[in-house]
């Protein structure tokens, strides 16, 4: 058995019950990309997560590694909420087949409601492979209300 020490007032009623429910059920989502290539034919890849939040901030993180095909190829990793740009990083290879990991993160202070978070991985130049060793090595995109 545990103990809770209360210094002050605690109200347990319907409203607080819903609050506790919100805390216990803070939403989350993840996109595990399958391996893909960004090049002049396929210039962009996107992943989306829909969250219905209670008003707390949402943490976003997209990680992976870029395997450049031909040289100093590069790509942009961009985070959006409801179509609004939040954050971008650029990832570039030093030479062909020199895998370069990346992490794009953002803590979004957003109003309660339903929001669609997206990551776009778009071509800068050349050929960029995401998932050289197959789908288990493709990028992941995760989001949750903290």
């Amino acid at each position, binding site marked *: *058995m*545990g*103990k*809770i*020490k*209360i*210094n*002050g007032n605690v109200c*347990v009623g319907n409203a*607080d*019950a819903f609050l*506790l*429910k919100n*805390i*216990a*059920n*803070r939403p*989350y*989502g*993840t996109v*595990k990309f399958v391996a893909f290539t960004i090049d002049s034919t396929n210039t962009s890849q996107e992943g989306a997560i829909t969250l219905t939040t209670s008003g707390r901030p949402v943490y976003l*993180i997209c*990680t*992976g*590694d870029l*395997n450049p095909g031909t040289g100093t190829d590069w790509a942009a990793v961009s985070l959006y909420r409801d179509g609004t740009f939040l954050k971008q990083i650029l990832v570039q290879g*030093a*030479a062909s*087949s*020199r*895998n*370069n*990991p*990346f*992490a794009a993160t953002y803590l979004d202070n957003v109003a309660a409601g339903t929001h669609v978070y997206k990551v776009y991985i778009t071509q800068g130049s050349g050929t960029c492979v995401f998932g*050289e*060793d197959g789908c*288990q*090595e493709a990028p*992941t995109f*995760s989001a*949750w209300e*903290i």
Partner: protein
Amino acid sequence: MATRMIDGNIEVDNTGYSLHDLVSKGYGTLRFQPFTIDATTTINTGTIPITTTGRPVFAFCTGDLNPTDTAWVRIIIYRDGVQLRGQTVQGYATSCHNPFSLSVLDYPSEGHHEYSVSFIRGSGTSVFGSGTESQAIFSIFEI
């Protein structure tokens, strides 16, 4: 101010959201000692046990690879021996450090689990942790 002691858990509404669960989410972190992956030591693995309440677990590993020439390493995160996600890190010239960040949000069932990360040699010699302040870190926590 009055102090009132409650012996036990508080659960609110029929579905029983537990305060105990909320304040007892599992977590763990592992700071690797500096190590080298080469022809002699081809793999290094670190493991963190965790007991979860049923919420997802975020696992991430960060650090930097200090290569000899174009050495490369594959980094893989596992849960209970099952591969979750991997990443390849490669140098492009000797001593040109390449940082890495590997993450996964995992949805395991409630209970005890073991998360591990392995650094597996691809080729060459790769140093992780050139000093006492740049070791690889592996952390997990229930969100």
